[in-house]
């Protein structure tokens, strides 16, 4: 019975949580991020493949940016893998069926910051849709090869897990297009397959290089007993280990290539105690060492690409630190001359167009390059926004700037909005190296603080680029300072003068880094066993500060108290001070009781904005092979912790951020997505609107003025989610409603602040600007499939100004009002379009009513438009503009009426003419018709019908003034006001001419029609005024216009 009650409760709870929450990913609806780039520099590129018989089609795989496709040989790219893991290890096109391509996730350049994958995917429609086909736990995939004789037979080189033992490594084969897999070559739990090649003329011949490797948080090992070179001649059933001519001792990573046009010839870089270049001319049975340059042999664990020309077996390319070219089968190499300009170092992928082998694409740590002269000079493809940010910060300027540092691509800044959108040219480089934290000095707009790897930090003047190193040094007799790859460099949320940095000690500066005061003892575990990075690398020493360990990584001052500072270290310590660093309390032992493994890297700390006792922290245990998401919360200063979990979470946790207005709204960035909760952590949803679903989310900040969520991704640049205040208002009472109209925030009436830039940058990438229009935001519980959705804007008296068709999606919808009423009626029947007829008058600042119509249901709301206080014109100027616009509007409508009257007479006359018998009578009708045509010819352009023709009549003249006056917010110029007078005069003249003709002919024609026994002409408005058209002043009324 007890159990039954328990089960009932369990069900009740789960039901309750369902009913409580209609909140899910789709609720967020139109709350979409802007991906602002940059693409002026790239991110690391790991894979490139092209369609051999249509080389304009190209696929690019990025270390953290998914898969990109070009259909025009690289002129433009689109992202085609946004729903899946963003770390790409391999891309292979099925050249027999080039709409089919395979993608292996999990990059295999096993550096410290490498991410991981979740399996192998295939598309059969050129990347539009994907299916995951297994190898889920491989984490890293180095290469995929397809049997050219049987495209369902695919071999995959799986290095496998980097941070832990695993049986899921080696060579995998499928014979049924990925339905089932067999592991056909396996050595041990530490050794995976780094490379595999196949003889294209005899697919039974396979060579695989096996690699023993392992990373720990504080060291890397490449090489060991497990490594070796293996060959099969029966399609992978049996393998033999190749030893003849190979380097002595243990092997490390081996990169290989076979000459497609002479498959007996192989070349390989073999990592060993003495790494070298090796050549085989008997299909890998025996090998000979060649002399080689440093570039050919350097960093074999990271530079694992060597390529032989598809047609010419003697041409060998070695993309590595630089690009080396051999014409003699690898006997000698020269470096590319780079006459085309600088090429980013660190090369990982190369695809050669087999139809023109001088044409090739190179993937580097800084993006994709194309060469037309076989690698001697390179052109950068600047439209792939796969930049890998570590952190992001914002300043308080308008528009605010975003700042951040990138993997191997320095430190950058850009405005959050810019004329014509945020283009490549808007990004400003601030420094080189690997970039991490970049902090603008909020008290001095010229200054930023930034760094490159290993704690090398600078105070940089943005105006002239001058940099001053502000890195603290050890004190007298003090041990060596340990600086992290990604050293903390953070500011205070309260005091813009405060800057913190940290080695094993925490430092604080109040004078722009001129003095850094140490405000802590060693806050790490100081475990000496984890400080042997100088021995790191394995067979090849590789020590770039990437393995430095036992360092303070996360530093956060409480937004409520400058003296309350929390720190977290990369070796698992959590400590805080309440007196600005005099005393420290270590609460490390407490979080493991909540289920967070002890010793886990503290990746971020967020002291609450609302309660000093509350603190959130993310814990990243992936460097121990544990990719689980650990988000901890303590409400008692770290004494006890709660592990916040969700079935939605995936990927290790990088960053937690608490909103500063709504304490229940938190964002969590992980290695595989961005998540939000609106109820303090009970229910989380994945954010995915224009946010890649597995985006490596590394850092976030909410702008204090605009309420924008600014996100640093490690592979998709910076993203901005404009004004998240709508999310603050999303609560259960809203979500339970079928329809809900949110309050619209007061909006500044503007025709836009970013209107320059009519001359766009050629190529490149452009991020969108914020929409500067009032957002009418509403929630629909479900998609509306039946019934119209529209938003009506009314003035405060209830007069309809504009009706806007609404979107119908499930969740939040946004509709934008252009702040204009409907355009004027213009004379119709011309030979060209009059653009005045497309422009509605801009309304005046004030209150407006909003009515949301969903089918038969109506919801009322309001919105307010404000005059821009920073505008260079007054509210009175704007009113003059409005009055003038409306005057022109009325003139246009009157002219349209006049035209209608004339055309109506004309069409009646044309009809009658066919039936009038008497020739004399006919002549009178024709005369009237012709006279009216002359009038019509004065009203609007009736002759020329080319868009380049400049036939201008009253409509065109009026339309031009109207559109220019209505298009601005400022007072009309004197010329415009004068022009109105003269147009009034001219229109008056034409109107008089029309009336004169009516006076002259109307009755006469009707008499004729009577005689002809035809129906008379319908009266026109022009007849009623036919006799007298004198004004009160006694002159023709059109002359009136001259008097005011």
């Amino acid at each position: 019975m007890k159990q039954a009650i328990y089960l009932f409760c369990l069900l009740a709870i789960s039901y309750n949580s369902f009913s409580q929450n209609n909140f899910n990913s789709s609720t967020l609806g139109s709350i979409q991020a802007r991906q602002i780039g940059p693409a002026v520099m790239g991110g690391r590129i790991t894979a490139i493949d092209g369609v051999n018989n249509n080389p304009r089609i190209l696929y690019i795989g990025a270390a953290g940016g998914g898969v990109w496709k070009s259909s025009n040989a690289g002129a433009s790219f689109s992202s085609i893998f946004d729903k899946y893991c963003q770390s790409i290890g391999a891309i292979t096109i099925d050249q027999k069926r080039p709409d089919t391509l395979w993608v292996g996730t999990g990059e295999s350049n096993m550096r410290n910051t490498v991410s991981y994958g979740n399996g192998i995917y295939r598309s059969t429609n050129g990347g539009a849709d994907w299916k995951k086909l297994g190898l889920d736990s491989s984490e890293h995939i180095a290469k995929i090869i397809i049997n050219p004789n049987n495209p369902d037979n695919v071999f995959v080189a799986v290095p496998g897990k980097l941070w832990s033992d695993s049986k899921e490594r080696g060579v995998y084969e499928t014979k049924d297009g990925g339905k089932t897999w067999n592991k056909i070559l396996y050595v041990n739990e530490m050794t995976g397959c780094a490379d595999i090649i196949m003889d294209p003329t005899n697919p039974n011949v396979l060579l695989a290089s096996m690699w023993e490797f392992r990373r720990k948080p504080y060291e890397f090992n490449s090489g060991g007993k497990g490594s070796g070179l293996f060959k099969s001649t029966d399609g992978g059933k049996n393998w033999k280990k190749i030893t003849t001519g190979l380097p002595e001792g243990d092997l490390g990573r081996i990169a290989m290539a076979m000459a497609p046009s002479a498959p007996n010839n192989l070349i390989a870089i073999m990592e060993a105690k003495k790494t070298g270049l090796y050549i085989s001319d008997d299909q890998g049975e025996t090998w000979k060492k060649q002399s080689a340059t440093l570039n050919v042999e350097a960093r074999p664990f990271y530079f694992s690409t060597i390529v032989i020309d598809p047609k010419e077996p003697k041409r060998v390319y070695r993309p590595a630190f630089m690009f080396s070219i051999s014409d003699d089968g690898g006997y000698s190499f020269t470096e590319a001359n780079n006459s085309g300009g600088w090429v980013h170092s660190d090369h990982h992928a190369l695809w050669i167009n087999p139809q023109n082998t001088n044409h090739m694409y190179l993937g580097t740590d800084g993006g994709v390059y194309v060469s037309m002269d076989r690698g001697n000079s390179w052109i950068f493809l600047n439209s792939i926004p796969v930049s890998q940010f570590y952190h992001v910060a914002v300043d308080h300027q308008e528009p605010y700037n975003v700042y951040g540092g990138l993997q191997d691509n320095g430190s950058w800044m850009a405005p959050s909005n810019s004329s014509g959108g945020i283009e490549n040219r808007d990004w400003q480089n601030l420094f080189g190296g690997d970039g991490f934290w970049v902090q603008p000095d909020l008290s001095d707009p010229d200054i930023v603080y930034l760094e490159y790897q290993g704690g090398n930090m600078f105070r940089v003047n943005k105006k002239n680029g001058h940099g001053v190193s502000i890195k603290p040094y050890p004190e007298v007799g003090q041990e060596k300072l340990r600086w992290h790859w990604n050293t903390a460099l953070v500011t205070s949320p309260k005091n813009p003068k405060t800057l913190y940095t940290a080695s094993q000690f925490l430092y604080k500066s109040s004078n722009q880094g001129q003095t850094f005061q140490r405000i802590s003892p060693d806050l790490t575990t100081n475990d000496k066993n984890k400080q042997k990075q100088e021995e790191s690398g394995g067979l090849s020493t590789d020590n770039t500060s990437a393995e430095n360990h036992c360092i303070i990584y996360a530093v956060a001052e409480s937004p409520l108290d400058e003296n309350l500072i929390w720190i977290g270290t990369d070796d698992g310590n959590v400590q805080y001070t309440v007196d600005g660093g005099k005393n420290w309390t270590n609460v490390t032992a407490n979080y493991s009781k909540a289920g967070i493994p002890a010793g886990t890297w503290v990746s971020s700390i967020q002291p609450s904005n609302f309660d000093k006792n509350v603190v959130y922290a993310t814990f990243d245990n992936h460097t121990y092979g544990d990719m689980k998401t650990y988000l901890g919360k303590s409400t008692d200063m770290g004494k006890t912790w709660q592990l916040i979990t969700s079935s939605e979470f995936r990927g290790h946790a990088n960053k937690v951020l608490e909103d500063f207005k709504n304490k229940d709204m938190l964002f969590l960035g992980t290695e595989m997505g961005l998540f939000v909760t609106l109820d303090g952590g009970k229910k989380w949803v994945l954010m995915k609107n224009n946010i890649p679903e597995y985006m490596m989310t590394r850092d976030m900040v909410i702008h204090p003025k605009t309420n924008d969520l600014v996100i640093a991704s490690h592979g998709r640049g910076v993203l901005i989610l404009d004004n998240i205040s709508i999310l603050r208002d999303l609560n259960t009472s809203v979500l339970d409603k079928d329809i809900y109209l949110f309050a619209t925030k007061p909006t500044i009436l503007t025709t836009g602040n970013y209107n320059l830039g009519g001359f766009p940058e050629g190529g490149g990438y452009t991020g969108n600007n914020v929409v500067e229009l009032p957002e009418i935001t509403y929630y629909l519980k479900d998609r509306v499939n039946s019934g119209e959705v529209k938003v009506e804007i009314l003035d405060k008296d209830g007069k309809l100004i504009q009706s806007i068709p609404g979107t119908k999606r499930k969740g939040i919808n946004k509709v934008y009002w252009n702040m204009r009423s409907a355009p004027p009626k213009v004379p119709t029947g011309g030979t060209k379009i009059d653009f005045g007829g497309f422009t509605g008058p801009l309304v005046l600042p004030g209150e407006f009513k909003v009515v949301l119509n969903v089918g038969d249901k109506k919801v009322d709301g309001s919105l307010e438009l404000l005059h821009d206080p920073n505008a260079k014109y007054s509210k009175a100027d704007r009113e003059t503009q409005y009055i003038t616009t409306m005057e022109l509007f009325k003139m246009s409508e009157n002219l349209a009426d006049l035209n209608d009257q004339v055309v109506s007479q004309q069409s009646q006359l044309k009809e009658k003419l066919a039936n009038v018998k008497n020739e004399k009578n006919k002549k009178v009708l024709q005369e009237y018709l012709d006279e009216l045509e002359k009038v019509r010819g004065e009203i609007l352009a009736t002759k020329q019908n080319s868009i380049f023709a400049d036939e201008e009549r009253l409509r065109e003249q009026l339309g031009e003034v109207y559109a220019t006056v209505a298009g601005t917010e400022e007072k009309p110029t004197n010329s415009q006001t004068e022009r109105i007078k003269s147009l009034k005069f001219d229109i008056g003249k034409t109107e008089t001419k029309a009336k004169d003709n009516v006076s002259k002919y109307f009755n006469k024609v009707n008499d004729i029609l009577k005689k002809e026994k035809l129906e008379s002409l319908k009266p026109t408005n022009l007849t009623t005024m036919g006799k007298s058209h004198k004004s009160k002043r006694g002159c023709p009324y059109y002359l009136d216009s001259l008097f005011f």
Partner: protein
Amino acid sequence: MKIKTSIFAFFALFLLNSSSNAQTIDEIVAKHTEAMGGKDNLEKLKTVYLESEIDFGGMKIPVKMWRIDKKAMKVEFEVQGMKGTSVIMDTSGWVFMPFQGQTKPEPMTKEDVKMAKSELDLSGELVEYAAKGNKLELIGKDEYEGSEVYKIQVVDKEGNISTDFVDANSYYVIKKESKRKVQDKEITNTSVMGDFKKLENGLVMPHSIDAGMGGSLIVKKYEINPKIDTAIFEMPKN
């Protein structure tokens, strides 16, 4: 013991539920056909006339459309008294767009006619697809604007490829992506359909169509099986 069975029953129910979600193409098409008014009503659909409007920030552009099943379609819209017309027939078509200076109607290329031919199918390419020579492939269940959809790839008799997004609740086609090859380049046209209404004769038709031109086409009048004079499809001589 009892508790175990109830858990088992609970999971069995759950499993049953989830397995019934996997639908075949034919099941989806059958539900779609039903949702659009049923096979009988769709078979009776021979001609359509509709009047609609596109609203560009208050400037309303009237659009009229005449369609004869499998034979002809004419679209006519009016801007400031100037009329733009396009006509597609089984093997030919013409277009007249005077807005940019075109002075007389011009015939469409064979390729254009071929690509637009699916427009002549009044009941849509899913209904009776096999008889029409359309090949369908269920790409899978996906999400469109937060709603669950079935993505179905359609290859018609002419070899045109498009993808229909069938709403998993209503079984209406709420979005359609058509691939078009223009000269040497592939472009994708997207239409989003909404405001599905039942007409007098039982057919259900979308009354709002957004083809990504900056405004939605809102249908004001829908006539089913009106008499249409075929002369209106002929290309004017001048």
